[in-house]
């Protein structure tokens, strides 16, 4: 349906797109991702013939878009901008009707009621466009574009002003339109929404396509790191894949810190410390325990025990090795039972080896189901107790 061949475009000498080639087939539902200024909007405007490429060509149904007159192109391709200014008091109904321009004769009336009903914006009908909120405007702009009854719909971040519920509704609605036969190419900022809704993605960076294809193949942590300059982590939860991000580390890694945790008690510190550039290790955690899962996603070194098992001698030794390599050991707010008593032992061992030992939570007794752990930790000297994880972070910011 659409074919771009070696399309190059620059704004005042600054290249916005370099040698872009790709094609869309009828019925495609493709997202475009990429950092700000990577050329996403430019790409859409080139396909809609509003910008003329300096090199290369854009074909729509085998014919260069520049060869279409604007009216017949508007019947085939509709563009949904992020926003536009209209400071004059037209009603929403009138604004939507303007979208019909390419299909209706002069002085002919077009009633957009059924379209507005389908989109759930009938209640806005008689409101004045300039008085709408950003989110309402985006819906009206989409309605205006759909009044063109296009074959190809280009959207430029259509959800940027919508709240989360409308974002999902919007993409569900787009998917429905796609099933009815509309081809869709959509610039989208939110990478998680991109993963959730789009089967195929194109990733742009500095005017070039750096990846395209199946969404989960495009949005890999490595590629996100190289194009966006942030760290990304992939999580799988309840059958879905989603991403979380943290800023890229600047400068050298800081001190090594070992966390003794389990059951999710270490998650907060794990992430905070890793993002602050500390080299973090864990131990002993059970495989598939939530701390272990997160540790794996963050790529941390860990002493791991089999699922739901007591800590064996082997894992205990591994834990001690990790402690040996670190400067600070933090025992998180974990409940103590017979299965993980060896972790308390390791903590005390760390103190003996001259490592600093910090313990989170002063409520030891309430968490102690062995009767021994509290005694072990309070009988030795040098343990520093903290009220909360946040205090630990605050202390660390002063330097270890």
């Amino acid at each position, binding site marked *: 349906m659409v074919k771009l061949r070696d399309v190059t475009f620059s704004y005042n000498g600054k290249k916005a797109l370099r040698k872009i080639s790709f094609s869309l087939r009828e019925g495609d539902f493709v997202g475009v991702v990429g950092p700000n200024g990577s050329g996403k909007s430019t790409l859409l405007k080139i396909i809609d013939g509003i910008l003329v490429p300096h090199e290369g060509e854009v074909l729509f149904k085998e014919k260069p878009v520049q060869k279409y007159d*604007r009216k017949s192109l*508007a019947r085939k391709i509709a563009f949904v901008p992020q926003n*536009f200014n209209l400071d004059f008091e*037209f009603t929403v109904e009138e604004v939507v009707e303007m979208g019909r*321009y390419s299909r209706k004769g002069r002085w002919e009336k077009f009633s957009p009621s059924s379209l507005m009903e389908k989109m759930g914006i009938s209640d806005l009908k008689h409101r004045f466009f300039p008085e709408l909120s950003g989110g309402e405007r985006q819906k009206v702009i989409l309605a205006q574009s759909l009044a063109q009854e296009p074959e190809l719909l280009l959207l430029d971040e259509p959800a940027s002003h919508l709240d989360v519920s409308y974002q999902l509704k919007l993409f569900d609605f787009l998917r429905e339109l796609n099933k009815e036969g509309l081809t869709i190419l959509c610039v989208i900022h939110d990478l998680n929404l991109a993963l959730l809704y789009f089967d195929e993605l194109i990733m742009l960076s500095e005017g070039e396509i750096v990846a395209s294809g199946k969404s989960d193949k495009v949005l890999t942590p490595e590629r996100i790191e190289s194009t966006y300059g942030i760290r990304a982590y992939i999580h799988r939860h309840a059958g879905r894949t989603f991403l979380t991000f943290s800023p890229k580390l600047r400068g050298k890694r800081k001190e090594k810190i070992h966390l003794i945790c389990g059951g999710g008690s270490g998650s907060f510190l794990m992430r905070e410390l890793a993002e602050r550039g500390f080299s973090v290790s864990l131990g002993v955690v059970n495989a598939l325990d939530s701390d272990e899962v997160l540790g794996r996603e963050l790529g941390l070194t860990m002493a791991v025990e089999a699922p739901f098992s007591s800590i064996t001698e082997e894992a205990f030794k591994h834990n001690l090795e990790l402690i040996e390599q670190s400067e600070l050991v933090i025992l998180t707010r974990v409940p103590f039972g017979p299965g993980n008593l060896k972790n308390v032992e390791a903590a005390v061992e760390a103190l003996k080896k001259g490592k600093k030992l910090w313990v989170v939570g002063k409520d030891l007794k309430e968490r102690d189901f062995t009767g021994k752990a509290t005694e072990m930790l309070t009988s030795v000297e040098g343990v520093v107790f903290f009220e909360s994880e946040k205090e630990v972070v605050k202390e660390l910011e002063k330097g270890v």
Partner: protein
Amino acid sequence: MRSKWIFIFLVFLFFFLSFFFSVSFGPAAISIREIGKVLIQGEVEGNPASVIFWQIRMPRVLLAFIVGASLSIAGAILQGLFLNPLADPYVTGVSSGAALGATVAFFFNLSPIPWLSFFALMGGFFTLLFVYSLARRRGFVSVYVLLLAGVAVSSFFSALVSVLMVKSGKDLHALVYWLLGSFSGRGWMELKISLIVLPFLFIPFFFIDELNILLQGEERALELGVEVERVKKILFFIASFLTAVAVSASGVIGFIGLVVPHLSRLLLGPDHKKVLFLSLFLGASLMGLSDLLARVAFAPSEMPVGVVTSFFGAPFFLYLLKRRGS
């Protein structure tokens, strides 16, 4: 729906009343009864009332109506295209070009009809071409450059007009009178020339959709299927032509082209279907009434009509601005 027809009726009523008052009153008192008789009989030679009515008032009033409608339609178009409510028919510099043309004709002692009008028209036309070519780049016309170039060219031409006036060493009364705008002494001849604008008053009604869509910006208009460059070219030409003819017929009459489209928008909203309709009738009526006032206020001497429109138009415009701000 009903209120719409009532409104349209009121507009027509105002239009006809304005026309009736304009032809009925003047320095020479003609009673209403006589007016009716004269109107029905047509021109009767030897009857002073009939001659005054048909030879002096009728063409003058008709010309005022046409000029008022032309300036208002031109203003409505340009305010829409520039997305700027402060635009008026004179922003493109066409009027100053016309004024320069007229001054040149005056300088060389050419007769007012047809030469002064012709020079004014040509002055306006070439100014338009000049400003337009400045704003044109790679096939696109930038409305901002057009606006700024228009302002610059206007002041340059005003300077030239002043130089010519100083250099002429003649009695400038007639020229100043012309520059301020006046319908004084205009007859059937001038009216016939100005009839050339009639089709151009109605062509904009074919571009209602385009004018409305262009309020969303040129890019959005392209996306929705409007041939923006062609539409702009046609509408600029029409607005400039209307302005040039109006100026060549009656000089530079201020504020009508600025205030009337505003007033129309205030009354019925921004839809150009209504803005153009109202501008056409209100512009004509208000210009007729202004000229009436110019004739009778200090009778038997006459004021330039441009003074009347500015006297009422400027405060009214300030009132509009204040209202908008609150």
